[in-house]
């Protein structure tokens, strides 16, 4: 890793987490820090099998704020996705990214939780109202739309 001045006093914990993410990545997840800013990660999550996102490759960005790990990382989808807990700006409604954050959680656990969220959408705690409504009134059709979006936006990139 190139040590620019901005990255010079990176906490040991972040360095260790990064090393482990690169050496033993979680299945279906890749996360690599950007060259210029070691607190900024380019993330890719494969759509889980058995989910409407299967076959898609979803890009996300993850940023570790100054207070990390006391404060949660900031994560956002860059790939368009049809999901009741993800809004059109890619923001994610996930408890561990908010009030349930604990400094003993890690980047890895956060990304695994997001992957799990793709397998199990929760329309009762929605971020995207319209999509959640769609999900609750006609799940089959909503799932079809999610598949269509996956095909349109998350494949062949």
């Amino acid at each position, binding site marked *: 890793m190139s040590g620019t001045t901005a990255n010079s006093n990176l906490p040991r*914990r972040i360095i260790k987490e990064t090393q482990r993410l690169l050496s033993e990545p979680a299945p279906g997840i890749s996360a690599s820090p950007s060259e210029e800013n070691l607190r900024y990660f380019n993330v890719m999550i494969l759509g889980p099998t058995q989910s409407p996102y299967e076959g898609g490759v979803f890009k996300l960005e993850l940023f570790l704020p100054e207070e990390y790990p*006391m404060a949660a990382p900031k994560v956002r989808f860059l790939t368009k996705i049809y999901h009741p807990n993800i809004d059109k700006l890619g923001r994610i409604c996930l408890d561990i990214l908010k009030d349930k954050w*604990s400094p*003993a959680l890690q980047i890895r656990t956060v990304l695994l939780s997001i992957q799990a969220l793709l397998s199990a959408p929760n329309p009762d705690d929605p971020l995207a109202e319209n999509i959640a409504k769609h999900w609750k009134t006609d799940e089959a059709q909503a799932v079809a739309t999610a598949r269509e979006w996956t095909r349109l936006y998350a494949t062949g990139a």
Partner: protein
Amino acid sequence: MDSEDDMQDAWGGESDGNLSNENEEEDEEVSQSNEPDYGFDDFAADDDINPSSRLPQSNYTILSEADIRQRQDEAINTITNFLSVSKMEAGILLRHFKWSVSKVNDEWFADEESVRKCVGLTATRAENRRRSQTENLKCAICFEMHPLSRMKASPGCGHYFCETCWTGYIHTAINDGPGCLTLRCADPVCGSAIGEDMVLGLVVEEDRLKYKRYLLRSFVEDNRKAKWCPAPGCEYAVELGFVSGAGSYDVVCKCSHNFCWNCLEEAHRPVDCETVARWILKNSAESENMNWILANSKPCPKCKRPIEKNQGCMHITCTPPCKFEFCWLCLGAWTDHGERTGGFYACNRYEAAKQEGVYDEADRRRDMAKNSLERYTHYYERWATNESSRAKAFSDLIQMQAVHIEKLSDKQCQPVSQLKFVTEAWLQIVECRRVLKWTYAYGYYLPNHEHAKRHFFEYLQGEAEAGLERLHQCAEKDLQEFLEGDTWQNNFNDFRTKLAGLTSVTRTYFEKIVRALENGLQDVVQGQGAQGSHVAQGSRRR
């Protein structure tokens, strides 16, 4: 000068003939009770006499920071004894149940296990095995290995993190706000509560003060029975004992701010919180502006922009660029007007149409709005005038206490302690102005069709206004003579008797009017507004 007779003249002059008997009867009592009658007509008096139209002091308690701390300690001690838990645990329980000792008790004895789980008082420890001081442990937050001496376990659950990480964790929580009072273990699935001892044992002084501040504030802010005084900069809280039957929540803070405990607006007896909220909303510019525009403007018949009429003339010219000239009454082009329509100053096209009943709904609405606007303006102006009188009286009172009392004491060779009656008079004036002010909001919402009530209300209000005027005059003008006079005046004692008497009788009258209005003027319905009968009912005091 016989001050009492003097005042009888001043007060009794306008009273109804049929009241004079009652007044004489009162006079007899007066000589016994040493309280002269100043001519307020009694009405619907009940026998219990409240010392003030404010809530009786015993109904609420003003709490300083020290009082709050004391109450917190008492609650914690009680819970510690009842439940046989530590003080730290008692604190966690009380904060969770909003400082209600009885709620903690009830819930605990109903289901201790689920209460423990819910507040994070886990009875089981995560790691029980003994550790040697030389053992190195990995901290799950900073990922470093530390000797046991640098690690710290949460006393509730036994989860270890290094001291630096615990401190950072707690620091972050404290700076996130009062949620730090219900902080849980840093382990993501643990949920064990982190108590005061651990927090205060780790953090720096600044965080310590913040945490203690939140702890203090939680007693008021989470507590259903306590609220902070809303006066800017005031640090007292007011704890309510029980709610009086009348449902009034007016309290006076030690900072002298007089407010409604329920809605936190300024004190507003005799009107209820709902009326106050409606009235305040009504007074807000937008809602009235709409009506005003409706009453005073019409759309230009050509360009449709609202045009305001601010002069008497019916010839309106729209603003540029339109500049259309039209008649305000019929909205026709002004060029059509002249001799044929009855001259330039009357539009009989409108009159004729009106007589035929043609004038449209918009016109009728506009007329109604205009009437209701006039009615509102009537009450609002009087409400606002009394408010500015109250504010003026309040600053006079401050001035009185700061400067005049001492001056008066010098001039009249009276010890300051003997001049309390002056400040009491001014306190009463301030209070009465406030009550009077709110009677105008009351009057505004009193239905027009309730003739007997309306009649009686206006009578009471008129009496109150006149009586207060007399007191105000005496406290202002009469006092001035004694302040400005060059020498000691021997009629100062007469002045004392007069002012103290006026204060007392005005207070009594206002207490009664407040109770009558809070009662919804129920008594008048039975009596059908016959004032004589009320006097007869009310004149005897036991």
